[in-house]
């Protein structure tokens, strides 16, 4: 087995990998930027080394510095987490050249899947359904126009080097093609340093369903069923679940088979995700992510497997721990991404110092976080503070459990997405499983701030009591512990009048 690992990441995923490694007896080596000196991933690792300033381009993205730490600490392997260097072929290559184990697929696979048109070609060749479109980058606006007509409107122009919604433009009328091509190419150039753009048919209100796959060095590949991640905002997933609420067993089987074909087509090793768009019984390959996914915990909760453990085992050259027929799903799991964003304020990034945290507990609830009391939430990194995951025997129960857990969750000092997620859990279409990537756009009422008149009355009473207590105590605005007992109830219990006069001791 691997004896030590450098975790080339930060935040919740670094902590997740450290937890998994610790449980396997692997020595854990963290790295941290100046902004992360006191982060949980630093505190919980066996060793920790500074790698530069807060700005990721001067720390977490500096390959050489990470390799220096690996050398200095005697790390045997490097786990990239997700984001940062996780899908950079050159990093995987540099790690291998330094004689270290890269916990992920080969550099060649990463590169092939990172080039979206190349990925489309290889998937189509392997018999995996792809969205109709062009297989090569477009040479000009004119070619974009002809391709759009050939594929059939509406279409979407996408950056070949892309991902995350950047360099994407929907074209609904032929005359929009030129402007869209130019805008997409510009954005792609700016975001990825590559202005290649291709065309795909645009699916209206599709669902985002992805299959978790695993391959090993011995030629085996399996899938760990699907995750549905249709609740997105601008291509950023908010809520993920497993299994998909409305997929038929036969569809599940076909998609799993297609994903395994995709894995085999690129001799895949390690953990990967094959993303599909699903609409009206058809599914199409969207892209393949060659790393652990943010939403991997829902798969862990329904399969009972530890995906980080599997990653280490495969990276160590072991065969996959289970065959396809040994992998089973039980119950239903939902994940909510808790981000430092103000959902009722245009998803404005929120900053602050984390105060008191109340982490939900009890049955079926899991918290994967990367922050602690005192953590500074700035704008240097991704706004993901942590993930709340609920498991239950069925979807209805999982939703109610998530509602209960969200109500318990408290992250002091910084605004989070939790109140919006709470509302979604109670929304009728979500509860019925009527999901699509257009869900949020079609449920704008969720974003309305404000509550009912009853709430205002409670707020008024609370404020009056607070102000009264402050003026009475003439002290700092703190509320005395136990300052107002409930003797009215005590009297009522003793048989006195129920309401009316109230005397407090």
């Amino acid at each position, binding site marked *: 087995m691997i004896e030590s690992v450098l975790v080339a990441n930060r935040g919740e995923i670094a902590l997740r990998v450290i937890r998994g490694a610790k449980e396997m007896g692997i020595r854990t080596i963290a790295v941290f930027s100046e902004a992360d000196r006191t982060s949980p991933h630093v505190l919980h690792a066996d060793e920790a080394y500074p790698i530069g300033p807060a700005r990721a381009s001067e720390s977490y993205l500096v390959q050489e510095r990470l390799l220096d730490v690996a050398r200095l600490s005697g790390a045997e392997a490097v786990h990239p987490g997700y984001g940062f260097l996780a899908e950079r072929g050159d990093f995987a290559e540099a790690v291998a050249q330094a004689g270290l184990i890269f916990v992920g697929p080969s550099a060649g696979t990463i590169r092939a899947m990172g080039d979206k048109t190349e990925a489309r070609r290889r998937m189509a060749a392997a018999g995996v359904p792809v969205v109709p479109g062009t297989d090569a980058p477009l040479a000009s606006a004119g070619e974009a126009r002809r391709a759009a007509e050939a594929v059939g409107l509406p279409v979407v122009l996408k950056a070949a080097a892309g991902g995350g919604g950047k360099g994407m433009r929907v074209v609904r009328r032929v005359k929009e093609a030129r402007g869209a091509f130019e805008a997409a190419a510009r954005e792609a150039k700016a975001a990825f340093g590559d202005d290649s753009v291709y065309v795909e048919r645009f699916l209206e209100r599709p669902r985002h369903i992805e299959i978790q796959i695993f391959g090993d060095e011995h030629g085996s590949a399996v899938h760990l069923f699907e995750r549905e991640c249709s609740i997105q905002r601008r291509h950023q997933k908010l809520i993920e679940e497993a299994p998909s609420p409305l997929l038929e067993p036969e569809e599940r089987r076909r998609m799993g088979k297609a994903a395994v074909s995709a894995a085999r087509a690129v001799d895949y090793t390690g953990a990967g995700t094959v993303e599909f768009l699903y609409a009206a019984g058809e599914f199409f390959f969207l892209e393949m992510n060659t790393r652990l996914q943010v939403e991997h915990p829902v798969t862990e909760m329904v399969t009972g497997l530890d995906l980080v453990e599997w990653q280490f085992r495969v990276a160590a050259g072991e065969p996959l721990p289970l065959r396809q027929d040994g992998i089973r799903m039980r119950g239903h799991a939902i994940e909510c991404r808790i981000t430092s964003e103000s959902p009722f304020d245009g998803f404005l990034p929120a900053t602050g110092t984390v*105060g*008191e945290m109340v982490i939900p507990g009890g049955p079926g609830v899991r918290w994967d976080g990367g922050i602690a009391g005192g953590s500074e939430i700035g704008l240097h990194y991704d706004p993901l503070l942590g993930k709340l995951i609920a498991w239950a025997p069925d979807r209805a129960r999982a939703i109610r459990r998530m509602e209960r857990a969200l*109500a318990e969750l408290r992250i002091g000092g910084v605004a989070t997405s939790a109140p919006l997620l709470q509302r979604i859990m109670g929304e009728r279409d979500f509860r019925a499983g009527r999901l699509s990537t257009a869900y949020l756009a079609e449920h704008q009422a969720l974003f309305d701030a404000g509550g009912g008149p009853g709430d205002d009355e409670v707020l*008024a*009473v*609370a404020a009056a009591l*607070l102000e009264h207590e402050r003026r009475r105590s003439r002290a700092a605005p703190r509320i005395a512990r136990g300052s107002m007992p409930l003797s009215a109830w005590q009297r009522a219990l003793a048989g006195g009048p129920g309401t009316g006069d109230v005397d407090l001791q």
Partner: protein
Amino acid sequence: MMAQGVRYVVEVDGSRREVAIGADGSVGIGGRSLAASLVEAGRDGGCSLILDGVSVPLFARSAGRGQWEIAVDGRAVDVQVLEAREAEIRERAAKAGGAAGVEPLRAPMPGLVVRVAAREGEVVQPGTAILIVEAMKMENELRAVAAARVARILVAPGDAVDKAQVLAEFEAVEGS
């Protein structure tokens, strides 16, 4: 203190309510009398309100005298509380000024008062500097937005101020 205690006028989301807190601690609102208990719970402004048995966990942050930011169920609302007689005086003053009153100056962000530029009683014009507040290593000049008389300056150099805290109050100037 009167037998019926202290009456407060509370403004939540633009709507006003009267809340009476008895010298004995009872709470009256909307013609009803409720049993109430409010205590600190947790460590960061977390409170527990029990109102006629109903348990409401909330988070309260003071934003200056009479100003509270209260969050219930993830919804944070700014609430203003005045004793009824203060509210009356203000209203009368506003009416006397022939205007709806002049908005007080509030801190646009948390910071540190560096300097006070205006004096109480002074009549200021739109754009006149009232206070200098340092935040994020930058000095910010807070200026009057309307012609008015400076009624009260509520802070002094060196004071730390919270976002939305009232820093100065104005009176309408006749004819303005």
